[in-house]
């Protein structure tokens, strides 16, 4: 295999791997969303059992504070999950019209042999795939980080609810 072809295939594979990874990250958002729904259900159960009229009793106060922190953590987690799909700018390889124009420009510049033009076009595509790969990579890393942070915050919220449930029998 000649080096031009090798460069092209390596960069195309990297680009496609990042496209697939993006779809995986998008589909894995279902996990934090399910955890979020479960946490909301638990918060509503806790709210119905909480005696607000004795809020100044230490255990009731502790339950109230933990409940509030849990809601804040849950909303912060939800914000990370919503942010995951927002505001991303993607780049894609040149479209067909651009490729035809690039080929015509190369012919105008004196590269008349089909082999030379094919090699140049392969290099143009390798370079394009390289740029797209790097942009996708950065966007995917950020999306994966936001998803994990969101999930962690929701799980922390769930953990606090567990502690709050343990305190519930001691409230006045």
């Amino acid at each position: 295999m000649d080096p031009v072809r090798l460069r092209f295939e390596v960069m195309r594979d990297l680009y496609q791997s990042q496209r697939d990874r993006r779809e995986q990250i998008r589909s894995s958002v279902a996990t934090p969303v399910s955890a979020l729904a479960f946490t909301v259900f638990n918060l509503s159960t806790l709210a119905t059992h909480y005696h607000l009229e004795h809020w100044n009793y230490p255990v009731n106060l502790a339950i109230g504070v933990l409940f509030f922190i849990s809601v804040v953590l849950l909303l912060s987690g939800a914000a990370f999950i919503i942010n995951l799909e927002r505001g991303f700018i993607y780049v894609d390889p040149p479209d067909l019209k651009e490729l035809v124009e690039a080929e015509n420009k190369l012919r105008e510049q004196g590269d008349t042999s089909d082999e030379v033009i094919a090699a140049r076009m392969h290099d143009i595509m390798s370079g394009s795939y390289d740029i797209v790969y790097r942009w996708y990579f950065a966007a995917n890393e950020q999306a994966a980080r936001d998803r994990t942070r969101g999930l962690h915050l929701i799980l922390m919220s769930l953990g606090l609810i567990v502690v709050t449930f343990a305190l519930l029998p001691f409230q006045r």
Partner: protein
Amino acid sequence: MKLFKGLFSHVRLHRKPQDMPPWVRKRLYDNLLHLMEDEQEIQRLLQLPIKPRLCIVDEERVAMIRPYNRNQLNLDEQMRKAREEKQGEDREDDQQP
């Protein structure tokens, strides 16, 4: 009514960046200027006679700038501002040791 119209609208093809609100255009143009830098780097690296020109897409707004649409953007005031800001940033980067 305008909100419902926006929610249920479908586009046949990508929208033009000129039809987008200023903050979306700014986001697109800032990224486009960085993309053009990357394209120049690739041209230098592979010693290409012409620059590879890529498409840039804002998925949230279904807006796309295709390579041959770039010339039309020079007439947009927002693009001029984005260029000036980018030049200012580049100058600051050059001055830093």
